[in-house]
């Protein structure tokens, strides 16, 4: 007893825990007592949910290096330190700002239904659902916010001023993401399912987005699109005749590792969004979401592989990797409510659309998106949300539930598109006017690493 107390003299084992020696075999006295009563199953259940949520948050955090590697791998050597830096700072700054302001904006009380109130780091306003710890919910939401912000850097890689990057990535974490997030996960009008609410009146359904195909990924994708348009293509990307030139990524091994890491992190993103594991319903749900997530990723990769093989004569690694991400983005909306077969279909279509979107955006629209962020996050985010309207087993059109839910999904897509592309476009235009968004040609040619950071990623 003495021994044990000494072993952990810090705060770890607080008053509520009365430790007892384990007497060899199976006859164990209760380890836990709370206020003199044995711990309840309910209390353990909430703790299990917390562990599940925190595990999810860890995995979503781990998507950051995934994004960093994909973006670095798919761009050139001379800009590698720059892109790594961007992925580092958007998470660092985003985390701090989301804690100080964003969380309140997203989940705080509001009058007008448009946005919450920033809370300057205090969590008092917040009541966590299901007995979860507030700070646990905060970290979980933080890493989701960071994901939305980080998507943008890929599409604007290799030509954006670092200082301007800092500014716009702050605006995304501070304003754009939390406000539209408020309309949905924050309890706002798009997901308000009370009788007489706007959505219920109009469609009889609320907008559904389980883990963020639209709320996270397409928001990031739309802003990325706005950014890529305002910036213009990299030097040498399009010939005088308008022909698109390939600018291959410098390290597909790192790109592939990044995709696998993202895939791994997505098992926190989607199954983790259940926010609970206790009880049969929840454990069935997380298993189901795990399966749908994985099947969609696999189907997306396979589809992109075959489409690229068919279209270009050879199975392309870079497109298959993007296809996996496409499937993952696509399933993020409906991973909880489509069947396994449905998830395979969503993944498949996402993978197909990805290949065509990449070549359409590049060769037809002449928008230069070095890592394919718009094709993956925007196109497949929208597609996934739409397909959920068809394939949801509890509300979808294909299961005979009428078009109401599909309508709700479409409205959600349009609202998010307008909001995020609109604010994004204005933001970039203003930054560009005020200070210039793009580095001078010489810096772009010689590489951002040396001129913007005075460092090169590779030396001997």
């Amino acid at each position, binding site marked *: 007893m003495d021994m044990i107390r000494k072993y952990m003299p810090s705060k770890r084992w607080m008053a509520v825990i009365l430790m007892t020696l384990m007497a060899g075999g199976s006859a164990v006295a209760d380890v836990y007592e709370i206020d003199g009563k044995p711990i309840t199953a309910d209390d353990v259940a909430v703790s299990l949910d917390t562990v599940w949520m925190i595990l999810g948050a860890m995995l979503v955090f781990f998507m950051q290096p995934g994004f960093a590697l994909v973006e670095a791998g798919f761009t050139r050597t001379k800009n590698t330190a720059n892109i790594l830096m961007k992925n580092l700072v958007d998470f660092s700054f985003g985390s701090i700002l989301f804690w100080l302001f964003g969380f309140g904006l997203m989940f705080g009380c509001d009058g007008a239904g448009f946005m919450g109130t920033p809370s300057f780091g205090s969590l008092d306003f917040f009541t966590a659902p299901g007995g979860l710890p507030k700070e646990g919910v905060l970290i979980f939401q933080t890493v989701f916010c960071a994901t939305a912000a980080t998507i943008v850097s890929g599409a604007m890689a290799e030509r954006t001023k670092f200082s301007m990057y800092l500014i716009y990535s702050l605006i995304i974490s501070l304003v754009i993401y939390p406000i539209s997030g408020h309309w949905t996960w924050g309890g706002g009008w798009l997901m308000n399912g009370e009788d007489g609410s706007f959505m219920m009146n109009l469609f009889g359904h609320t907008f559904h987005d389980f883990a963020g195909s639209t709320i996270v990924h397409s928001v990031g994708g739309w802003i990325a699109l706005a950014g890529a348009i305002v910036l213009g293509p990299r030097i040498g990307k399009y010939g005088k005749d308008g022909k698109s*030139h390939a600018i291959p990524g410098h390290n597909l091994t790192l790109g592939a590792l990044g995709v696998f890491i993202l895939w791994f992190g997505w098992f926190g993103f989607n199954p983790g969004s259940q926010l609970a594991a206790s009880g049969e319903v929840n454990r069935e749900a997380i298993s189901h979401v795990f399966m749908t997530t994985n099947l969609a990723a696999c189907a997306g990769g396979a589809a992109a592989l075959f489409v690229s093989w068919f279209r270009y004569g050879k199975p392309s690694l870079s497109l298959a990797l993007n296809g996996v991400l496409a499937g993952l983005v696509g399933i993020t909306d409906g991973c909880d409510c489509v069947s396994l077969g449905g998830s395979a279909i969503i993944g498949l279509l996402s993978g197909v659309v990805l290949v065509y979107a990449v070549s359409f955006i590049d060769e037809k629209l002449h928008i230069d998106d070095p890592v394919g962020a718009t094709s993956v996050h925007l196109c497949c985010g929208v597609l996934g949300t739409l397909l959920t309207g068809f394939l949801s087993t509890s509300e979808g059109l294909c299961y005979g539930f009428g078009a109401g839910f599909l309508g709700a999904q479409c409205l959600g897509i349009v609202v998010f598109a307008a909001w995020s592309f609109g604010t994004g476009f204005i933001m970039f235009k203003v930054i560009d006017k005020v200070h210039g968004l793009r580095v001078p040609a010489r810096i772009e040619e*010689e590489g951002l690493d040396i001129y913007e950071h*005075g*460092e090169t990623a590779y030396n001997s």
Partner: protein
Amino acid sequence: MKKLEAIIRKTKFDDVRDALLEADIEWFSFYEVRGMGKSLQSRIYRGVMYDTSIIERVLVSIVVRDINVEKTVQAIVKAARTGDVGDGRIWIIPVEDAIRIRTGDRGDISLYDAEKK
């Protein structure tokens, strides 16, 4: 025969390649070199300043018959010039003989064949 060594900007490589192909030079080698030159740019690694002037360049190496030297030089100069410091140089170096490994051909014919085939 002469060997031309052109040290050019990396970003100009595609243009130079196209210009060479247009000038009927279908065969050349290239590799990356780093240059010390006047286009300075300081780097800092963990607080320590270093390498004030190292720039990555591409060295294009072409062996041509004497009659093609001027044409090739002009093609490169035109395609590689930006007018800013750092455009690079071309050296013309004598070559005494050339051998095509596949056939064993020697001399101008090994180049001629290659260029016109």
